């Protein structure tokens, strides 16, 4: 905490200064984002089904990256087990829609809520571990969820399930509906993260990141905040799982509970820039592009992306978005507070007064 100004601007600030949250770039960002979402919503009328299906894959990656970043970038929790919730979301959709007979587009939010509820007891187990051991602990929990799934015959045991209840729709309609669902999922995931980080919770996380003990002594409910983010992230991953199942129409325990999802999430967030809202989106797009571009290379693509992630961790910790934005000068999603005062106007210490 370099200055106390963010929380208590009136304490030391003179009458020339004021606190701003939005920036020119953030207004520009809003000006681009709204038309962009409207344009993306019109995509099913413009492009063919194969491309829409690919965009659904990209959208699921954006949701996953955003959720992993919420957990690690803001909450400091490196999870290698978010595939547990991807699987719960996917199996929830297929089971509720095909066996229980729920409308598939209602089954998605219901399984998201189920995943959120299940993640609460899980968090009590996982939170007994910290740091790297937390990471492996979440992985073990994901393995247990997978192993339990393979023991349940109603869920297709080791063979998996096919989603059939969308077959009533014509293929064009089906993919368009799934596309809109996925676009909405991206808007929700990014929107929820943005508003969470602008809220009191986000400020608390900034304090936890800087000094957990100090934050705790100032009344930030550290464990409570972390658990809240853990549950939100689980729900977001379940949403992505539902998107994946609705897009591929077939799930198996080995594919939907694959630890590769965690690898993808981590790489996307590192490459894009951890701890920002823009970074995971950039990372997901770059990852998706590399995946398509390097698809002829077989498993080599993951080697290349992995090496890239290691290099970025060591030499470019703010990721590609840090590079694009000039280390945070451009903000499309302003979650921080900026002190606009005479010193900054004269450009003497533009960074010193900033805090996000």
């Amino acid at each position, binding site marked *: 905490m370099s200055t106390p100004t963010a929380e208590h601007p009136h304490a030391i600030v003179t009458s020339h200064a004021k606190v701003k949250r939005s920036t020119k770039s953030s207004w520009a960002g809003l000006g681009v984002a709204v038309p962009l979402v409207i344009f993306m919503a019109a995509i099913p009328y413009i492009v063919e089904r194969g491309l829409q299906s690919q965009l659904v894959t990209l959208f699921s990656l954006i949701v996953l990256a955003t959720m992993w970043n919420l957990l*690690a970038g803001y909450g*400091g929790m*490196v999870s*290698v087990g978010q595939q547990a919730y991807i699987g719960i979301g996917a199996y929830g959709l297929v089971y509720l829609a095909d066996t229980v007979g729920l409308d598939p587009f209602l089954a998605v939010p219901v399984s998201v809520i189920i995943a959120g509820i299940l993640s609460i007891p899980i968090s*009590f*187990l996982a939170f*007994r*571990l910290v*740091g*790297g*051991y937390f*990471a*492996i*602990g979440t*992985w*073990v*929990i994901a*393995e*247990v969820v997978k*192993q*339990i799934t*393979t*023991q349940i015959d109603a869920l297709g045991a080791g063979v998996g399930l096919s989603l059939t209840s969308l077959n009533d729709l014509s293929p064009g309609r089906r993919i368009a509906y799934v596309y809109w669902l996925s676009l909405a999922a991206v808007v929700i995931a990014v929107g929820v993260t943005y508003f969470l980080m602008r809220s009191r919770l986000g400020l608390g996380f900034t304090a936890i990141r800087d000094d957990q003990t100090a934050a705790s002594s100032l009344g930030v409910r550290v464990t409570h905040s972390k658990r809240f983010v853990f549950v939100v992230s689980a729900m977001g991953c379940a949403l992505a799982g539902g998107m994946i199942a609705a897009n591929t129409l077939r799930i198996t325990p080995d594919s939907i509970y694959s*630890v590769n999802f965690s*690898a993808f999430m*981590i*790489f996307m967030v*590192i490459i894009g820039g*951890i701890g920002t809202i823009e970074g995971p989106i950039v990372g997901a797009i770059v990852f998706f592009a590399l995946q398509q571009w390097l698809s002829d290379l*077989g*498993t*080599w693509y*993951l*080697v290349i992306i*992995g*090496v890239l*992630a*290691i290099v970025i*961790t*060591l030499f470019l*910790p703010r990721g590609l978005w840090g590079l694009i934005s000039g280390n945070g000068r451009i903000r499309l999603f302003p979650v921080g507070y900026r002190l606009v005062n005479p010193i900054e106007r004269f450009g003497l210490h533009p960074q010193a007064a900033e805090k996000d």
Partner: protein
Amino acid sequence: MQWLNAVIQGVLLGGLYALLAAGLSLMFGVMRIVNLAHGVLAMLAAYLGYVVVNNMGLPWFVAVIVVVPLMALVGFILQWGLFNRALSKGGLAPLLVAFGLAVVLAQLLQEFFTADTRSIKIGSIGTDSIQISDDIYIGVFPLVTFIVGVLVIAGVQIFLNRAPLGRAMRAASDDPDTVKLMGIDNRQVYALSTALALATVGLAGIFIGTKTQFSPTYGDLVLIFAFEAVIIGGLGSLWGTLVGGIILGVSQAIGSQINPSYGLLIGNLVFLAILAFRPQGLLPKAVTT
């Protein structure tokens, strides 16, 4: 009687898990690095052993002589070139770098050795067994594995307690800044610690590569077993890790006895139960590492 047999086999399996876990425990103890690449590095050792024994036709013990120092060298280089740099970045960097390394190495192993399962040849000793009673047999190889596991745990513990370098490792763990004032180069101590850790990983990799059919993704299970042994036993205690390994091994053996597909699940559930009811582990900090 078959239950007693399951328990005995489980205890022997526990020795292997303790052997697997020693390196993970050591790296965390000295540098606070949780090496997510631990399992994949054990698979690297298994493949190196496979090349020495199955491809080059050399005797099994030669694999140990060749692979263990080679893995120690890999450890030194990794720490010097990668992890020391990541440690200096602080925060999540060491964990993320270790994870990246795990994925990259697993993919490379898959590229060079394919995803086919393999096993290191050992000859008749692999199937020999000692008859204890009418229906209890102890395999010679599992017994040797168990003894090696116990010896490695004891050896590392004595090394940390007695040897000058072991003392330096403990000191670097307790207070890196003061250690620097004493004229010790932390980075070098760290590199030697990882070298030692990966030497045990090399040994563990050869034993597990001989015992089971392995593939590049088997490293995931190795990491999980090692981690569970460490947590069940209690952080910071190598003897606890041995106890943790044995409890995990017995749980899995009993689970498999109930139903062949339950082994891994029961092992994981026992781990989660201990995490829920005794999160400090069974022998926490009995001996500091």
